């Protein structure tokens, strides 16, 4: 079965120009091969450089040991999990896995279903901590758009939740205007962010 593909655009980090890309509903074998043969070696090389330069471990990329092949396989087997990928110029630029069985935590939305972003990662060359300028900008916003759109499609009203990696909190707090519910002791003390239906509508309009 071929994936649903949406035409989208990323921005070239060097020129600032729009580049045609595609958002794919589903993570397929090609995306996993890109992760395995392109993302992972790139990350490992960068970490070796950091290690040689004496960069403390806590500053290494925190998604270093994520295994997308395993995650995608588990998602295939369990209902209520969906994967998305962004490809641009023949290469996977971002991956996201979401679940459909979580409930909202914000008081006025408590107990209502939401789309929970289990994992979201952009290719290492799009991460400014690893490459400056990043090759493409906009991957995170497009993947979040997919999560919010899925929430609307599932009649969850756009409600979306996630645990942000520490270096990504600003993106979710400011760019996505999600509500910061603070550190979650049950989830490695990562801060939990949630988007209400109103916040979702604002996000889809571009925060205007």
């Amino acid at each position, binding site marked *: 079965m071929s994936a*649903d593909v949406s035409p989208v655009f990323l921005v070239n980090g060097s020129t600032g120009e729009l580049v045609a890309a595609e958002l794919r509903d589903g993570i397929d074998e090609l995306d996993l091969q890109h992760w395995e043969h392109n993302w992972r070696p790139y990350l*490992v090389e960068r970490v070796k450089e950091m290690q040689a330069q004496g960069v403390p471990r806590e500053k290494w990329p925190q998604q270093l*040991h994520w295994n997308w092949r395993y995650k995608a396989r*588990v998602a295939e087997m369990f209902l209520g999990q969906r994967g998305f990928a962004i490809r641009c110029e023949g290469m996977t630029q971002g991956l996201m*896995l979401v679940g459909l069985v979580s409930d909202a935590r914000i008081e006025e939305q408590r107990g209502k279903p939401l789309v929970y*972003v289990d994992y979201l990662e952009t290719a290492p060359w799009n991460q400014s901590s690893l490459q*400056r300028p990043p090759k493409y900008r906009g991957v995170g916003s497009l993947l979040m758009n997919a999560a919010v759109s899925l929430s609307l499609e599932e009649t969850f009203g756009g409600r979306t939740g996630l645990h942000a990696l520490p270096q*990504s909190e600003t993106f979710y707090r400011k760019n996505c205007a999600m509500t910061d519910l603070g550190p979650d002791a049950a989830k490695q003390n990562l801060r939990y962010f949630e988007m209400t239906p109103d916040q979702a509508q604002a996000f889809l309009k571009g925060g205007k």
Partner: protein
Amino acid sequence: MRIHVTPEWCLAMARREGDLEVGAGLRAPHVEPEEGASSLVEARIAFGRFVHLVRRKRGISIERLAKDASLDLAEVVRIEDDLHYNPDPRTVYQLARVFGLPQRPLTELAGLAVPKSERFRSEAIKFAARSESMEALSVEESQALEEFIRVLSERHEA
């Protein structure tokens, strides 16, 4: 599902995103890339790929293997795909039983026992390197698998 975005939305959001990091999800434990840890990871790659290839070579589905070995389905998936998963000795014993292979070398391959022979270790790493593709059981993979099963059996007989 499809999304509908305009070039203007993409441009505005990408500019706002700028150089911000966007990762979300629980962190995996740190184990790489220190000396020593890497050989453990290589061993696990070899074990995971070995289980994966033997299963497919014999035409067994992952669900069937889990049932025959009395293992949880999610555990078999983790063995095949998650480098950080430590199978316990019972699990390795059950897999060895289903595959009809000697238990001790499989235990070494799973990283639960120190390999007695350097040759075995290097063969395991060579096997991991040769069986990189998870897509199709190619002639080369099939050959790598058969050679490695021979080495496993030699270890057992030695």
